[in-house]
């Protein structure tokens, strides 16, 4: 009976197993890196928009409150895209012949909405409600970043589940006075001095962290 395996078969087997293990490890590391990379999360990437709208100008320079345009952020699940009517409140008089604003004027003339490209998008299997977060004092800047410093809108946070859970497991330190939610600069917020604020606020508003990681809270 002839030999089935050659003399070097053991060596090949060991090398193969080692290679496979390394392959799995490297793939895992690469995958983990890829998941967190801005290529996947889109953090810091701007998108082509029909109008190069600058939050830096409107929020940072002019000082318009977020809610001037995003009117349903306090009352509904969506913050709300402003109607063209809202843009034209000022731009019926300002920059009336600017080429960059031609799509806005066309939109008003034809009644066709501007097709903005969504920047802060959640997967369709996530239920998110703006109003409850705003009412409990999670400032806009926590999720949307310093939009007052963004000439073109970009995603500031990865919007992945682990990032959501970071706050849902321990909301206290992320809470701010609800009447200041649209404030952008919180550097003056003294973490030491307000160490008690979060827990007190959470208790006052009836926030129960033990229920805030229920699957069905967001996946309905």
């Amino acid at each position, binding site marked *: 009976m002839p030999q089935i395996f050659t003399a070097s078969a053991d060596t090949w087997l060991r090398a193969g197993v080692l290679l496979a293990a390394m392959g799995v490890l490297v793939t895992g590391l690469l995958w983990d890196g890829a998941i967190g990379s801005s290529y996947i999360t889109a953090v810091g990437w701007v998108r082509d928009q029909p109008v190069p709208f600058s939050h830096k100008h409107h929020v940072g*320079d*002019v*000082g*318009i*409150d977020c*809610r*001037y345009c995003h*009117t349903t952020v306090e009352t509904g*699940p*969506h913050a*709300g*895209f402003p*109607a063209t*009517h*809202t843009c*034209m*409140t*000022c731009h*019926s*008089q*300002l920059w009336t012949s600017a080429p960059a604003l031609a799509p806005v004027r066309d939109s008003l003339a034809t*009644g*066709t*909405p501007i*097709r903005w490209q969504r920047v802060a998008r959640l*997967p*369709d*299997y996530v239920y998110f409600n703006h109003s409850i977060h705003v009412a409990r004092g999670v400032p806009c800047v926590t999720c949307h970043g310093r939009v007052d410093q963004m000439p073109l809108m970009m995603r500031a946070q990865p919007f992945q589940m682990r990032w959501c859970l970071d706050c849902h497991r321990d909301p206290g330190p992320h809470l701010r006075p609800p*009447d200041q939610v649209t404030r952008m600069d919180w550097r003056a917020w003294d973490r030491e001095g307000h160490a008690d604020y979060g827990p007190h606020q959470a208790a006052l508003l009836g926030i129960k962290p033990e229920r805030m990681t229920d699957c069905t809270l967001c996946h309905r």
Partner: protein
Amino acid sequence: MRYLLLLALCAVLIILLVGCDEMTHQPRYQAAGPGRLFPDGKAMQAPPAGAVAQDDPARAAALDRRPAMSAALLARGRQRYDIYCSPCHDVAGTGHGAVPARGFPAPPSLHEPRLVQAPSRYFVEVITSGHGVMYSYADRVAPADRWAIAAYIRALQLRRDAPADALEATDRAKLYGAKLGGAKLDGGPP
């Protein structure tokens, strides 16, 4: 045969994996997204002509009736005023906001005699329907909030135009006792 089965299993797995992305982008309409089903291409449809929303009577009633003055009403009015009015009218109501500073026709000061004498309903009507180059804010400011803003405008006017003597004695003492960098207070604030 066994290899064929394995291949088929792989194909099924790949097809299932493709399905994973369908969860992220489900074939459904987004609130402000496109809707191919409708003639105007919008997912969000305006109610048909003549439709009355369930909360329409309540809104109409809120617009009709002036709420009683209260500290809460003023606080709400101040917040709404700062959001929707201050870009043009500025936080003091003098009409020197950031938007007029960039070339928008400056609105009149809320402290001019015509507007001090105007009834509160006048401000509610201007917010509702607009006035001159000012657009309507009916889509942004709820009826009850329009009255709150009108109330806060009254407070702004009073704050600027009321004589210090009209204050109660304790408040007046507080005002004159306030250290304002050595500035001498005579009459009302500037």
